[in-house]
């Protein structure tokens, strides 16, 4: 058994770490205030290959693998969690097109997603009335003589206002007249597409989250991604990979909180001692570090399994997302405790991290849904 990183993986980690330290961390607090979308940083990240880490070189990807991708997201999240989610969604969208797209679709979209011509791609599955129960979506694509007509509304679309391409899931009707779910590539500038106002979120302000309405949007036949009726399966496969991204993002946020808390604990003095000399503080640091390390190993294993591509990794990805997001939330909570009153102010970064981390237990499937995925897999194998 060997769980050390290879040279390529550690070089990718180093590049992401340097970039996060020099370009993202110094701006994270002001972007939290302004909620400005980080167009310039995203363009630089595309230049470094971070927008298509696990994408083939023929499409402008880095082909560095899933483990390297996870390592990179961990580092970027330490610099700015909002940028990490934008990166993660862009990588996920690119991977879906790579895996299920026709060669024309791949050539059209992926180089623009990896190369920065599109600041991002978007993943439009959730709706105002359908979140965990994605299959109950109401957006519908009706077959027309030369394509499709798409109508409905999507919610919570990450990067939606800046996306170059939208992946939109919609109900379609099969030849037997039954409903099924299909997936479409939609141009956000097409007639009938209306992008809503950005949500005012608790955290991750520099990420963009909008609802999008579709009113009889005309799609040509080649907008269909994958086979008709294959949409739901594609969504679930994409989310398996996406969960590795969110687990990595959570770990990055947790590590940043840990580093801030440790640095504070060895400086701050009370009762004539460093607070790091109190066992109560030491135990908090020990617990945070232990849980984040466990989360990291779960996530690395899920990433490694996906990279091997020899067996399903859905259970492991859900375990990683579930555990990492909960460990990271505890880490941020305890980091605030270690900083005391200062931790509760915007003078110090842990307050923002606490707000940023919370959604990792909600998106890409709530943690309740992760437990359902894990339990079903366990019971299936009993």
């Amino acid at each position: 058994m060997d769980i050390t990183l290879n040279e390529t993986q550690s070089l990718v980690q180093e590049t992401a770490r340097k970039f996060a330290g020099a370009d993202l961390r110094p701006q994270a607090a002001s972007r939290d205030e302004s909620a400005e979308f980080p167009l310039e940083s995203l363009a630089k990240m595309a230049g470094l290959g971070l927008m298509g880490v696990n994408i083939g070189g023929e499409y402008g990807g880095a082909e560095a693998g899933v483990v390297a991708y996870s390592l990179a997201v961990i580092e970027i999240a330490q610099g700015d969690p909002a940028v990490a989610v934008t990166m993660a969604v862009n990588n996920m969208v690119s991977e879906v097109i790579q895996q299920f797209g026709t060669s024309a679709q791949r050539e059209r979209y992926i180089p623009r997603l990896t190369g920065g011509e599109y600041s991002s791609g978007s993943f439009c599955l959730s709706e105002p009335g359908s979140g965990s129960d994605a299959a109950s979506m109401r957006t519908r694509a009706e077959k027309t003589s030369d394509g499709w007509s798409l109508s409905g509304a999507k919610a919570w679309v990450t990067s939606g206002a800046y996306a170059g391409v939208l992946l939109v899931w919609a109900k379609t009707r099969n030849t037997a007249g039954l409903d099924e779910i299909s997936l479409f590539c939609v141009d956000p500038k097409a007639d009938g597409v209306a992008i809503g106002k950005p949500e005012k979120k608790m955290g991750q302000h520099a990420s963009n989250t909008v609802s999008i309405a579709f009113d009889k949007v005309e799609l040509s036949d080649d907008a269909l991604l994958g086979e008709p009726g294959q949409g739901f399966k594609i969504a679930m496969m994409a989310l398996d990979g996406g969960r590795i991204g969110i687990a990595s993002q959570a770990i990055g946020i947790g590590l940043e909180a840990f580093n801030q808390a440790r640095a504070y604990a060895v400086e701050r003095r009370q009762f004539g001692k460093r607070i790091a000399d109190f066992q109560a503080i030491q135990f908090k640091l020990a617990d945070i570090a232990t849980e984040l390390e466990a989360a990291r190993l779960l996530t690395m294993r899920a990433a490694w399994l996906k990279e091997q591509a020899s067996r399903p990794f859905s259970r492991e990805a859900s375990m990683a997302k579930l555990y990492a997001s909960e460990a990271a939330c505890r880490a941020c909570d305890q980091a605030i405790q270690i900083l005391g009153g200062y931790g509760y102010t915007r003078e110090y970064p842990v307050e923002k991290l606490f707000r940023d981390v919370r959604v990792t237990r909600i998106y890409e499937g709530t943690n309740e849904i992760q437990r359902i995925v894990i339990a079903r897999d366990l019971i299936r194998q009993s």
Partner: protein
Amino acid sequence: MKILTTVKRVTDPDMKVKIKPDQSGIITDGVEYRMNSFDEYGVEEAIRLKELHGGEVIVVSVGPAEATKEIRTALAMGADRGILVETNAELDSDAVARVLAEVVRRETPDIIVIGKQAVDSDRNQTGQLLASYLDLPQATFAYSLEVADGWAVVGREVDGGTSTKRVKLPAIITADLRLNEPRYASLPGIMKAKRKPLDTLTPADLGVDIAPKVRVLRYEAPEERAAGEIVGSVDELIDRLRNKAKVI
């Protein structure tokens, strides 16, 4: 144009250095390593020279097998070919310069651009010694570099300001901080670097004796600096400088 640059694997300068109890060296357990930051400027400049004038960038490291990572980083930034002169011995600047001199004799580069010093031992000698061993011109502490018609014009950081020096190539240029802004190794660059040639030699292969001329007796930590104090007035400041710090 054939351009030679060097990288040293150094302890992470952002980490706290701890000295062994017997003062024979520093504690390396749990220490992270990275490319010497001055070498990043050297590598960047070498790559820019290639981008401007064409040719090849060769990156050399003298050190342990793990230093392939620093070489690979330079290859990922855009260098073409690596040479590791592998040794686990403690090296002084003179030994490194003797090894590099032999590599330069074999490779016959048109220009040698290296970091002005390493951020671990901060000795700032290798470039100068190398120039001396090779009997080549040198321009140290470069903040600007222009190459044309077999000459290099080098803007140098010197005490009290800057100066300009013109040297005939081949020459040794040592890089200072303002020379450029080193690029990151991009992910596609990292993947390409895997396939670039990296040869490993030993000092013996080069026929160089690396026995040190400098003997380190012991390591000592600098005295801890006491916290500063804020004074209320200029008079008070002068009083402190005169009577407490005793510097005026």
